[in-house]
């Protein structure tokens, strides 16, 4: 039933492209890529119990790893994507090792400082990164079965975003149901107790941060390939806060929460910003009300009230 629900969600997203008007077509493609980022964040916050305030470091590592190799090295899409993923995984492993002895507020602060250091590095090495201004990638194509597809094509963009999101969603579902996923949840519940059952908790924590970084980096790499832009904004603190809000709104520790949270918040900002300049006040109030109604987030609230089987 659980797998069926997730496949049904992916089928709905696939079908939506046939009916959505052009603006929302692009919007939903963007939401899917950002939801993949939130899935990466959720692996750490929702399933391992570690709240990061520096996740932009992973998103940006994937983005810069991919973007720089295309921009300066002339790499193709596949090779650039591999470099982006390797960069995100490496950064994830390093951050995991550096934070292995921290928890709670200390983990939050250390991740924030590391992300700020990365952000400042993107500004400092501006000859390479073009700093705040960033750079635009040339038109890119992927070749499949001998046929070239332009990533700028809205249909290609939508379906690549869907494939990446689907892969992240199903991978996260598989992970949380696996023995490794169970250990991560046990870590969230009580780290000392988990160690006393015989688990090397430090190793699992590093693994969790590295996997979270890899998924977030995949989202960053995909974003840069589909939307053809790399800039230090994506390494800034706002892009560390966004996945936290999306995950909390949708439901931390639920596989579908990141999609729901990202979708709701992106559209809430889009709709309210068309009505007033003070749209963040309205979005903030809506967020507060939602969290008051469902402290565990939208999907978390549904799970608590009606569908306890939701993963």
């Amino acid at each position, binding site marked *: 039933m659980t797998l069926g629900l997730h496949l049904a969600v992916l089928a709905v997203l696939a079908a939506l492209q046939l009916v959505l008007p052009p603006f929302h077509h692009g919007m939903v493609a963007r939401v899917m890529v950002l939801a993949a980022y939130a899935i990466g964040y959720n692996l750490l916050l929702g399933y391992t119990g570690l709240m990061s305030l520096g996740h932009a470091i992973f998103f940006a590592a994937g983005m810069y790893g991919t973007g720089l190799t295309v921009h300066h090295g002339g790499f193709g899409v596949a090779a650039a994507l591999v470099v982006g993923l390797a960069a995100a995984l490496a950064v994830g492993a390093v951050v995991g090792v550096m934070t292995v002895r921290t928890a709670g507020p200390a983990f939050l602060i250390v991740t924030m400082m590391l992300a700020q250091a990365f952000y400042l590095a993107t500004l400092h090495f501006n000859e390479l990164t073009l700093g705040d201004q960033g750079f635009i990638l040339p038109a890119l194509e992927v070749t499949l079965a001998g046929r070239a597809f332009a990533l700028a094509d809205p249909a290609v963009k939508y379906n690549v975003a869907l494939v990446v999101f689907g892969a992240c969603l199903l991978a996260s579902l598989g992970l949380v149901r696996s023995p490794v996923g169970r250990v991560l949840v046990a870590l969230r*519940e009580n780290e000392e*107790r988990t160690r006393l059952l015989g*688990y090397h908790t430090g190793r699992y924590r590093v693994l969790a941060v590295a996997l979270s970084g890899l998924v977030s980096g995949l989202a960053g790499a995909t974003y840069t390939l589909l939307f053809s832009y790399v800039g230090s904004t994506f390494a800034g603190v706002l892009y560390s806060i966004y996945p936290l809000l999306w995950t909390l709104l949708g439901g931390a520790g639920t596989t579908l929460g990141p999609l729901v949270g990202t979708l709701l918040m992106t559209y809430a900002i889009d709709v309210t910003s068309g009505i007033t300049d003070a749209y963040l006040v309205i979005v903030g109030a809506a967020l507060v009300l939602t969290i008051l109604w469902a402290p565990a987030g939208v999907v978390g609230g549904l799970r608590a009230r009606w569908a306890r089987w939701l993963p």
Partner: protein
Amino acid sequence: MTLSLERVQAAHGEVRVLHDVSLEVAPGQIVGLLGRNGAGKTTTLRTIMGLVRASAGRIVLDGVELARLPAHEVPRLGIGYVPQGRRLFPHLTVEENMTMGLLVRGAGADARRDVLDLFPALRDRLGQRAGTLSGGEQQMVAMARALCVRPAVLLLDEPTEGLMPTLVARLLDTLGALRARGVGILLVEQKVDAVLGVADRVVLIENGRTVRQATPAELAAEPELLLRHVGVRRR
């Protein structure tokens, strides 16, 4: 497997808590560890598990020195630990709590069945979140989870705390069943009568030192020992 502690010392930071602790738990034997509050009973268990580092002495399980091992290695060698207050994973179900124990040493359906045979009441609770169970059921889950690791030696820290008398009696029966299966048990308990009723041997600890080892019959013959070292007068 025999667990033995030889002249173990340990400290919390600058404060030495264990000065000289020696005891032995043989297979199929229940050893009670009795002492006043603050005597070092819980610290002894935490030192065996590697949560508090032994600064001197030896902790040996079947010839393997435990004192220098990281904490996560100790359960893998065959020591189960049920801490005071149970410390379950409250948001996981009973089944998931048990699975966490089963996965550690790759134990399968046999181990799960054996454990549920010891705690049949848990069969109806497998899908329930552990945090929503009664105190007695939570204690059963805590012990079941520790037993899923298939320990040769089980360390229990005040397992009867907060349980009503009928549940205490049932729990002590379970300890007897574990003894019959060859599991060695080190039992820390405040309820002196419960320990004397089930233990094969009792170790008295005072100010971080093991001061006397005796059988329950010997302690019954010398009630002043309990009064002096545990502060309990028995009739």
